[in-house]
């Protein structure tokens, strides 16, 4: 059950998070009332297309959203305490120590003017006040932990001397240096070769077991979700449209958008005739969002009631879905079969 509402079992609870970008012409609600929880020791995936607000959600947790973006509402409870009430100094003690983050672009996420060792040392210096020698010793251990061959040599090299996969391993070493309880991985494998992707995911999974971390995995790759996540939040236009355990998402998706995403994956067990199914249309521009259900203009089942925004409703399995089809008010085809195109 994803929503147990017992704080001691959830490392992170996000309630009605709203992050807005203020420009001179408009206000863009990049994250618009997002709520979900991360149970202790589990991996929660957030999936969605580019611009769905998944990265901004993750940056909001560490309060690292750059201007003109601003968290305007909601709460982010980490171990029962609301991070949005913390001072900047308190947040700094949490960043890199209790909650760590790794990013999409290992090629640019490391500072080109410092050695790998110096960059890992920094985490130890900030949070544990270690001196040069002991920090270096710990950094070497971290490099070994993340599986970098000949760490004694690598520790004194600069980022440009390492491959993309190596750099992501270094990023993981930095993130895990102080034994965080929550790791946020924002598309950690998107920029890597397929073979390296698998290695990095394996490494994250492995370290999660070893270090008893919880992981928030941001991705647009459903394959990655299937391999690593316990729960999945599907985001569309700044809102969560479906939240469920990974089995339900893949075996019995509820929201037409989730169904659309899954249908557009090439099946591995049979051939398909013709083109892969696609979701018609495109993600609406964030300043011209539909009034009702955000997905309605692209939805094959859309009906009149879809012009009103549906709520995220918890069903009898404890999973959540934001769609009128599952409510009493549904005014469309009563026989609608959201999963029809997948099951046939």
């Amino acid at each position, binding site marked *: 059950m994803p929503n147990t509402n017992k704080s001691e079992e959830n490392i992170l609870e996000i309630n009605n998070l709203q992050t807005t970008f203020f420009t001179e012409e408009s206000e863009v609600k990049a994250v618009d009332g997002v709520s979900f929880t991360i149970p202790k020791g589990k991996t929660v995936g957030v999936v969605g297309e580019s611009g769905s607000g998944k990265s901004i959600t993750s940056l909001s947790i560490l309060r690292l959203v750059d201007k003109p973006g601003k968290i305007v509402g909601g709460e982010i409870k980490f171990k029962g305490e609301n991070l949005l009430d913390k001072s900047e100094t308190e947040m*700094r003690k949490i960043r890199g120590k209790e909650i760590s983050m790794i990013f999409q672009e290992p090629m640019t996420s490391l*500072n080109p003017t410092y050695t790998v060792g110096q960059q890992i040392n920094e985490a130890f210096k900030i949070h544990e006040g270690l001196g040069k020698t002991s920090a270096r010793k710990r950094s070497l251990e971290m490099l070994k932990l993340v599986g970098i061959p000949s760490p004694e040599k690598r520790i004194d090299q600069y980022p440009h001397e390492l491959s993309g996969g190596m750099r992501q391993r270094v990023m993981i070493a930095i993130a895990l240096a102080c034994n965080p309880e929550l790791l946020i991985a924002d598309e950690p494998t998107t920029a890597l070769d397929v073979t390296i992707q698998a290695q990095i995911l394996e490494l994250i999974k492995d370290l999660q077991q070893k270090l008893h971390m919880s992981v928030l995995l941001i991705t647009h790759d459903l394959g990655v979700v299937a391999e690593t996540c316990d729960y999945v939040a599907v985001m569309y236009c700044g809102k969560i449209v479906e939240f469920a355990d990974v089995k339900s998402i893949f075996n019995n998706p509820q929201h037409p958008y989730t169904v659309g995403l899954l249908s557009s994956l090439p099946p591995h067990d049979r051939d398909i005739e013709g083109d892969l199914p696609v979701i018609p249309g495109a993600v609406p521009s964030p300043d011209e969002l539909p009034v009702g259900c955000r997905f309605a203009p692209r939805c094959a089942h859309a009906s009149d009631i879809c012009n009103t925004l549906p709520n995220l409703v918890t069903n009898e399995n404890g999973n959540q879905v934001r769609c009128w089809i599952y409510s009493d008010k549904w005014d469309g085809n009563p026989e609608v079969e959201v999963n029809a195109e997948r099951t046939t």
Partner: protein
Amino acid sequence: MFTYVLRRILQTIPVLIGVTLLVFSLMHLIPGDPAQIMAGESAPKEQVENIRERLGLNDPYPVQYWNYISGVLQGDLGNSVRTGRDVTNEIGVRFWVTVELAFYSMILSIFLGLIAGIVSATRQYSFSDVTLMIVALFGLSMPNFWLGLMLIQWFAIGMDVPSWIPFIENTAWFKPSGWGSFEQIVLPVITLGTGGAAIIARMTRSSMLEVIDQDYIRTARAKGAKERVVVYRHALKNALIPVVTVVGLQFGALLGGTVLTETVFAINGMGKLVIDAIQARDFPIVQGTVLVAALLFVLVNLLVDITYRYLNKRIDLN
């Protein structure tokens, strides 16, 4: 690193040969006869001819150049045609004055420029950013000889200070001319350093703004680093790379600026020497000064390249 420095020093040799060739040709192409100037307007023709012969001005150009360059290699830059004094000595006594002026101005430029640039970039579009950049635009647009004259008027003579400014009656704090004491150094250094400070400030600002959006800055913040550490340790070191280039180029402009500044403040340096020499067609002095200035410029840019290497590990100098 050592072989690199050595190679760069060897590379300066053709540059310096080029400089001597250029200056030598220019001095002989511009109108005006040094022999005539030495002898005086109304001197008889034979006397002028005598002087020409004595100075070797009747020799073919390649011979004149050869004589000159072989002298240079032995540390002999020739004798002034006007005073007959040894050029090496003439430059020698003024060299350090100009180097000091250029060096202090450079320090001022870098110091003010970096501070203003960092403040502007970290508070983009704020009141201080806009103010600093407007001031920088003024600094950039102001001809430095004019600034020098104004500074003399206000802070050396104490003239025209608006009467409504309270508590300040006499603003003649500094000396208008000469070189050596603190009161003499302040105004010329401000005069010469302002333009460079403005350029460095604008360059630092744009470079910082570019760097501050980079992914590795976000990584540093996500590590829990303090904002001060993020700005100075992570952003500035990367932002300095293009700034260092500008500093190197700026030094050339600064050497040119010493000519005007030394003239305005009556400082007896290389700049003033070269102005006087050009007016008198004293070509050995002009050649010597330009050669020394070129050498300085080349040396400073060598330093810049070495700093580069330190800042940017991706540059492989070998």
